[in-house]
């Protein structure tokens, strides 16, 4: 990994319940075109395409990397498919960045998407049979265990839900727009899987995300400020094995250690200005704050309760509104990575965290068993510049 990699173009679609105005390739194309426009590049400038999405049965379009080659302008170029369940958007971005960092390609387009309205993700997760537990059903007992271990008060999950939905109002691409949601309304909404209320669960979205990555010399000619990839890490583990701690998966602990160490981060809470973390159900915000050692055991709920994870707080989490506000599954991880990059480029619009120079993007998938993370900076020495 000798070369620097810059993110010079970022695009995403408006995330919606149903995008019936575009075909599946048309949806992906929309995000990709916006990323190219941001970079002021054309399709012919791209050397390779890296595509990621959640399992194919979600839409029933098998091996879309083949059928979408024309939509992605990939004729005569390498096209790669990445597949790591819900974390795939993050893993895909990392694979794309590695193609630049290793000197394989000079300009790489990476895309991730889901068109949930064309299929049924829960049905797909259950292997095409009815009666699957669903993601919430798998995660709920782990959340209850987390609450019991840490003594987190019951209103912390609802607080996260309200924060993310209010943040989403500042993001024109976010699916759910709920400016007036209150903690009481969250707690009074139907209980889906105890402790997850209806309003503590992500929506089902159609949407896509794309990024253009390039080398240091080409980035200098880019029209807008780039974001620099300071470090990346991926880890995985079995979804089930004797002795596994699914509340604090070891793969997540080690992935975070690796990504922070590689970026030179010794005190994440102080050195990271903004984080975009995969939180499809509210309680995953405190669970990952502790599960990635951003704060100590039993400390996450206090950070949240004090408002420190709000925009303007000490450690803002998901200023974009996060997965709780938009969940085009395959794209959700890449959206975390892209939103982190937008922050250090100073291009996050109304949900910009003032002066952000170091940002953390995280995605997880499967039975909380796949992790993908990156740290991005406004400059290559953004962490060191913090002193």
């Amino acid at each position, binding site marked *: 990994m000798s070369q620097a990699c810059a993110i010079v173009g970022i695009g995403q679609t408006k995330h919606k319940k149903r*995008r019936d*105005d575009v075909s599946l390739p048309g949806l992906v194309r929309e995000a990709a075109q916006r990323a190219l426009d941001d970079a002021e590049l054309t399709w012919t400038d791209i050397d390779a395409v890296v595509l990621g999405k959640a399992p194919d049965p979600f839409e029933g379009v098998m091996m879309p990397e083949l059928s979408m080659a*024309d*939509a992605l302008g*990939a004729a005569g170029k390498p096209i790669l498919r990445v597949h790591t369940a819900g974390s795939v958007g993050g893993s895909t971005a990392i694979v794309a960045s590695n193609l630049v960092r290793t000197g394989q390609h000079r300009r790489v387009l990476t895309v991730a998407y889901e068109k949930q309205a064309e*299929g049924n993700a829960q049905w797909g997760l259950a292997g*095409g049979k009815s009666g699957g537990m669903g993601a919430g059903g798998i995660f709920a007992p782990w959340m209850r265990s987390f609450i019991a271990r840490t003594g987190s008060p019951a209103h912390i999950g609802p607080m996260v839900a309200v924060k993310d939905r209010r943040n989403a109002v500042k993001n024109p691409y976010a699916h759910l727009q709920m400016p007036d949601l209150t903690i009481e309304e969250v707690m009074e909404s139907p209980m889906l899987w105890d402790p997850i209320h209806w309003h503590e669960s992500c929506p089902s979205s159609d949407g896509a995300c794309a990024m253009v990555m390039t080398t240091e010399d080409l980035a200098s000619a880019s029209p807008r400020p780039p974001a620099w990839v300071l470090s990346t890490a991926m880890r995985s583990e079995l979804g089930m094995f004797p002795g596994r701690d699914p509340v604090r998966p070891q793969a997540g602990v080690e992935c975070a250690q690796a990504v922070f160490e590689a970026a030179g981060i010794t005190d994440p809470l102080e050195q990271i200005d903004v984080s975009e973390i995969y939180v499809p159900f509210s309680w995953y915000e405190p669970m990952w704050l502790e599960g990635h050692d951003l704060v100590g055991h039993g400390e996450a709920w206090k950070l949240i309760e004090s408002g420190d994870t709000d925009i303007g707080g000490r450690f803002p989490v998901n200023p974009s509104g996060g997965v709780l506000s938009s969940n085009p599954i395959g794209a959700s991880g890449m959206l975390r990575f892209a939103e982190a990059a937008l922050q250090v480029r100073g291009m996050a619009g109304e949900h910009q965290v003032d002066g952000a120079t170091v940002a953390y993007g995280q995605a997880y998938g499967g039975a909380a068993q796949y992790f993908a993370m990156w740290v991005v900076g406004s400059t290559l020495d953004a962490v060191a510049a913090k002193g």
Partner: protein
Amino acid sequence: MADIPITTHVIEFPYTRTLGPVIGPFLTGLRDGQILGIRSVDGRVLVPPTEWDPETGMPLDPAGLVPVGPGGVVETWAWVTRPTAKHPLAHPFAFALVRLDGADTALMHAVDAGSIESMATGMRVTAKFRDERHGHITDVVFVPEERA
């Protein structure tokens, strides 16, 4: 003991598709008894039509959709001796690449030729539309022109 009523349920989950501005009109055309191609960036007529140019990746203008056929030439073919339930015809037929009149690329489809002896590369075929059409690729089958 009273008879226990038994009911049979078939549980299925239908996928849906949004076809977009090119494949949508192509399938609507089939329902209306017409095959459409689209003009590519370099001026060729592609059948079936694509939303993006296969060479350059540029979007193709739906205004460039043009009727092709119904006649065409078999470029190559393979005989299906024992069709399965999923094949378009219940009796032996050929899968063929058919380059329709006015098109520059070939469409893969079924040719209902009766027997393998009736098939030949370079033979003329023509589209025969089913009476009841649904906007599916199976709304049409090809037959040798002299039998049309």
